[in-house]
């Protein structure tokens, strides 16, 4: 499998682990990531909060470059980047006034033919391969799958999974041998960009999320968004003031997959977390080579 790749700004710095673990996992699964040449920032929340046209044009430049490189699909692992790229593509497709302005603003040809995909979408597609190659499954590890907002909403734009009861992350967690728990705050917002400008809100929201995961028996939380990771991992210490014990490891889905594939902890960036996750790494236990259980196939009808 070869797919266009848009890392986005946070994967280069504060969420390096997501980039590292994703690249490591893709190597292991035979997925080739073709990075968009000279990509620019998607504009994230700041562009769409201040200038609507800018919020469409900044992502559009990246999609235009991807198109010129012959890409039909682009993986944007960051949930915000995925949401902004998808929204820009949607607006250009549905709003002729906006579409008409793009050539003059971009100075690039752009036919809006690239399909933007998120991390859960791609990992779910690879779940059978992950299951097959999981030499060190995370057996009996209880994982709370945390989706956050931007992967699922607005549903008419992202058109992904079920916006109220998603299951894509749970599918991947099962593929690595772990047990997803049923819990309530799977799709609640973590506070996102208020991490800097309004920290107490983020601490309040994060504490509620961690409390609920803990109450459901989770041993760790799986995330697929750099800002969710930061708000639940980096900010966990600040939640101690709200009576939350800062000991719930928060892992990127790709880190869990990498562990199950038997990849070394160093290649996955797990040591970069603020809440230590070494205990989770120890739960990836290599099994002796077993034949993959045959899935019963229903007899052909007619």
């Amino acid at each position, binding site marked *: 499998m070869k797919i266009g790749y848009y890392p986005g700004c*946070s994967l280069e710095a504060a969420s390096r682990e997501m980039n590292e673990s994703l690249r490591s996992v893709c190597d292991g699964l035979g997925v080739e990531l073709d990075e968009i040449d000279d990509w620019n920032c998607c504009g994230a929340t700041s562009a769409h909060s201040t200038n609507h046209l800018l919020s469409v044009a900044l992502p559009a430049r990246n999609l235009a470059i991807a198109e010129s490189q012959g890409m039909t699909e682009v993986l944007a692992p960051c949930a915000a980047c995925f949401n902004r790229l998808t929204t820009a593509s949607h607006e250009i497709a549905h709003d002729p006034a906006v579409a008409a302005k793009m050539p003059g603003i971009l100075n690039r040809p752009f036919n809006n033919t690239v399909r933007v995909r998120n991390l859960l979408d791609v990992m779910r597609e690879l779940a059978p391969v992950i299951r097959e190659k999981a030499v060190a499954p995370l057996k009996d590890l209880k994982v709370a799958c945390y989706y956050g907002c931007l992967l699922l909403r607005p549903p008419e734009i992202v058109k992904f999974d079920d916006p109220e009861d998603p299951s894509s992350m749970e599918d991947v967690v099962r593929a690595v041998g772990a047990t997803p728990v049923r819990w309530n705050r799977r799709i609640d917002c973590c506070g996102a960009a208020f991490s800097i400008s309004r920290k107490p*809100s983020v601490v309040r929201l994060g504490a509620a999320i961690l409390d609920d995961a803990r109450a459901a028996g989770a041993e760790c939380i799986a995330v697929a968004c750099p800002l969710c990771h930061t708000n639940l991992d980096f900010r966990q210490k600040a939640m101690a003031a709200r009576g939350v014990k800062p000991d719930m490891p928060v892992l990127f889905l790709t880190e869990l997959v990498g562990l199950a594939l038997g990849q070394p902890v160093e290649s996955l960036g797990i040591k970069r*977390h603020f809440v230590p996750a070494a205990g989770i790494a120890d739960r990836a236990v290599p099994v002796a080579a077993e034949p993959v259980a045959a899935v019963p196939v229903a007899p052909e009808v007619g």
Partner: protein
Amino acid sequence: MSHAETTGHGSRPAPLAQRIHALTELNVAKCYQCGKCSAGCPMAGEMALRPHDIMRLAMTNRLDRISADPAIWLCLTCETCTARCPNECDPARVIDAIRELVAAADPKASPNRLRSFHKSFLQQVRWSGRMFELGLMITYKMRTGTFFADVQSAPGMMSRGKLKMVHKKIRGIDEVRHIFEACEAEEGEQ
């Protein structure tokens, strides 16, 4: 499509509902105040005016009451309200539009920290094409005077390799700057 759109009677602006419709094609009168949006809003506990209140005030042309409250700036743009609205009112987009209108009339209306964050963020993108976190933190702190907040986390970030110290411009930086200029010019015309 002007933000100040007049009704033609002197210089009184058009009713808020009409101005919102001009920006978004949305009809706030569709809202029947079921409250689902507010029930799911993660910031509702911190807001005096919750999403369904804002929809009601939009219907009754009370921009004055909306502007006097910080509620629209507390919106996280998490889209939970829009995902749940049973009548497709898209409250998230309505609140977005109200923010645009209020900020166009008074650029200083938004709380300093939020405005400064967005300005600092976009400044980085305009300068180098990508968001450089260290640069963002420095310019944000200078704009808001929050010099000491999170300073203790800097060593932790650095030792984990999460704080990039150097930053390069992308090759197509002129394209990015042109995008900024063109979009600002368009917005200015509105």
